[in-house]
């Protein structure tokens, strides 16, 4: 997590009692990735150079309609840099909902899924988010804006993802 401006990498890890392919699918398919965290369906073109696109969640769309705001479409975008299913995914990542984060450079996001030899069946998901030059994005993903209603960033998303996979129920879905 980031508390000073010179820190540019966030590292998060969670242990999940599930096969690697299940964890991979939960991250990369909109059927699953809409069911935890921010609830935004995310679409992956899973090959190097492929597109990444996050679209507004139902809750975000309802809020915009209720307040007479314009329809939301793409709320985040990026490009796939490396794809080695179900082990490793590297992509660029930018959040477009907020004008400050939208103006920042693309960040680099790495997902690693590894076996835990001591605990058969358990896999270790590590998320490395390089937020160099993107302090507003870092504040959002680090969770320090949670009190303002911006969600709890990666710690919150990964806790919810673990709940969804292990119990079939997330906090939001």
């Amino acid at each position: 997590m980031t508390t000073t401006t010179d820190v540019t990498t966030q590292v998060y890890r969670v242990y999940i009692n599930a096969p690697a392919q299940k964890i991979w699918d939960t991250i990369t398919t909109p059927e699953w990735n809409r069911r935890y965290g921010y609830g935004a369906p995310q679409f992956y073109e899973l090959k190097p150079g492929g597109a990444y696109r996050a679209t507004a969640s139902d809750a975000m769309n309802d809020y915009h309609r209720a307040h007479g705001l314009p329809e939301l479409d793409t709320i985040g975008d990026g490009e796939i840099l490396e794809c080695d299913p179900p082990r490793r995914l590297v992509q660029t990542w930018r959040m477009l909902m907020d004008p400050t984060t939208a103006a920042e450079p693309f960040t680099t996001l790495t997902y690693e899924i590894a076996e835990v030899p001591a605990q058969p069946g358990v896999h270790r998901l590590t998320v490395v988010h390089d937020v160099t030059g993107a302090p507003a994005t870092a504040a959002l993903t680090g969770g320090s804006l949670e009190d303002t209603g911006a969600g709890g960033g990666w710690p919150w998303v990964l806790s919810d993802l673990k709940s969804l996979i292990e119990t079939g129920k997330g906090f939001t879905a």
Partner: protein
Amino acid sequence: MTDDDRVFKALADPTRRFLLDLLFARDGRTLTELESELEMTRFGVMKHLKVLEEAALVVARKRGREKVHFLNPVPIRLIHDRWIDKFTEQHAAALADLKRELEESP
């Protein structure tokens, strides 16, 4: 030992909490950098870091030839999410804010 047991065991030591405080203030530090902040042998600091890594409160990653340590808040979040629901959260956060404010005012 369960994951929770490892987290509580790791947090039940002032030196290990101090190491987490150091990483909270500035993340991504080497063993040498962390050691310089403590009156303790290198071996002692390594032992504490190992307990923190086993609880996943610290994640060590290679950066070039160095090994750097990051604070991982997810295990604490899991404990939070287990006992504090969305309704209670607002009250708990308000009380925590009040305590901080009262204790910080002169």
